């Protein structure tokens, strides 16, 4: 399938993925940490949904930017899980979730620094070698930079280019960061290594004050983010899978179907034209 629009698989509406014939994303994405080692009722649900859809994985705890060592026990379990569910894309976050030997279960901003890049590049290569697949890293939303010595754009671009990993371009995160940190979202995207984009995320957010947006995945995608998405898609030289994330405040399924259809309409309009021109 050329234009794939998927949906994050969550327990809150797991049965919709299995039983609702009208709700048919092209693929599903799940966080492996939430399923590795699990048996019983939820394992049956996972197997049922994995039997119905292609699966991508979006990890939470790799903590590629952590000062702590990589967790090889976890990586071993992860590798087995990716193989077991025939996972096509394994993505993670360009952030850290563990420090001082403590997991925090959230995505913390890495200092935009040269030594951090070198540290992360080495770890990406180790992970890619072990998993025998490219790592696809997401530009994360952040609400403050920490002891930064360069811009976010330079940091993300250098990590991707120097490590050889691929980029999960989260368009909503770019919108959120551009708003929170006062930069131009389109300019930011245009300067990324777009030939490395392998996957796109789209989501909604919450504006908590006049000058701060929090990336909650708890609302519908807003029009300016669709506009930024269309701008992004036009810059890409090949179709990539697009995922709709919705983690909280789950609406009626019809609303999610509508969002997926709108995303698909945009990529189809642009990538079909590109395809005609190419041929």
């Amino acid at each position, binding site marked *: 399938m050329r234009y794939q629009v998927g949906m994050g698989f969550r327990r809150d509406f797991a049965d919709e993925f299995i039983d609702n014939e009208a709700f048919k994303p092209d693929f599903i994405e799940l966080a492996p940490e939430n399923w590795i*080692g699990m048996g*019983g*009722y939820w394992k049956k649900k996972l197997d049922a949904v994995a039997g119905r859809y292609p699966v991508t994985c979006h990890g939470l705890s790799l903590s590629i930017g952590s000062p702590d060592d990589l967790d090889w026990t976890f990586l071993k379990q992860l590798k087995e899980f990716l193989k077991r569910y025939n996972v096509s894309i394994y993505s993670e976050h360009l952030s850290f979730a563990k420090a*001082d030997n403590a997991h*925090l*279960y959230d995505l913390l901003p890495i200092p935009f620094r040269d*030594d951090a890049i070198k540290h992360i590049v080495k770890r990406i290569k180790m992970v890619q070698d072990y998993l025998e697949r490219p790592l696809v890293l997401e530009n994360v939303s952040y609400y403050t930079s920490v002891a930064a010595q360069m811009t976010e754009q330079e940091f993300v671009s250098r990590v991707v280019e120097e490590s050889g990993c691929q980029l999960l371009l989260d368009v909503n995160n770019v919108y959120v960061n551009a708003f*929170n940190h006062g930069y131009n979202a389109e300019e930011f995207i245009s300067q990324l290594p777009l030939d490395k984009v392998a996957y796109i995320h789209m989501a909604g957010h919450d504006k*908590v004050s006049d000058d701060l947006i929090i990336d909650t995945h708890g609302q519908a995608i807003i029009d300016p983010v669709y506009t930024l998405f269309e701008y992004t898609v036009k810059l890409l030289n090949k179709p990539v899978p697009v995922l709709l994330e919705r983690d909280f405040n789950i609406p009626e399924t019809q609303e999610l179907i509508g969002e997926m259809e709108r995303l698909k309409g945009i990529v189809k309009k642009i990538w079909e034209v590109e395809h005609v021109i190419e041929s």
Partner: protein
Amino acid sequence: MLLKADTRKIQEQFGAVCRKQNIVKLQLSRPEALVHYQRLIRNIFNNTLITAFPITNEWLTVDDWQYLVSEFMAKHAAQTPAVWQMPREFVEFVTENIYAATLNKPALNDLLWLEWYEIEVHTMRDVEEPPIMKTIYQLNDSLIMNPYHRIINLTYPVHKMHADEAAAEPGDYYVLTYRVMDSGDVRFIEISPVHVFILQNIIEGPQSLPEIVPGVLSQFNFDNEEAIQKYLAFFCSDLVDKKILIIT
């Protein structure tokens, strides 16, 4: 080391501030945003623990609950990469650090463990399940256990009464927690020390009740073998009906 010591320290400080929810001067472009990280991370811990321990959360006062969450976040370095398994570390932390005494809630540990074991049994890794060849129990049948179970020893009977009432009735209580093989639901049965003895023997390897009864008589100083065997046969038959015991 490619990561310089000061960058490492900055990251560790940022993580520590989020865990300990305190104020430390950090080199941030938007210092006012730090509270959002603290709030988001606290919500993740708090919500995960409330989901795991709804009865304990309902029982404790808001202040006591929040105190435990704060203590756990600040003093315990969470080890599991899977957030759904983090509540087990919470129970261990609360138990090891004697918060039941600090909060004057004697039944706290038992209630937390009971709630955790429900999750543990519900999510236990699937194993190859023994085939059920026969469903009507007969005395000489050799028995094995449903692989998805826990036998829990409680000091307070929190499985059958409010935790404050349970605190007034300390004793030696046993609860068999098991996963229903077809539905995946988790259920509890209160059992006696004699039942525990029977089940522990069966767990060690397939055995029939007549093979175990002599051990019961000597262990518990019973002398009426026929009556004991009849009583335990009824127990085994009930557990076979519930698919907790499986006839081999």
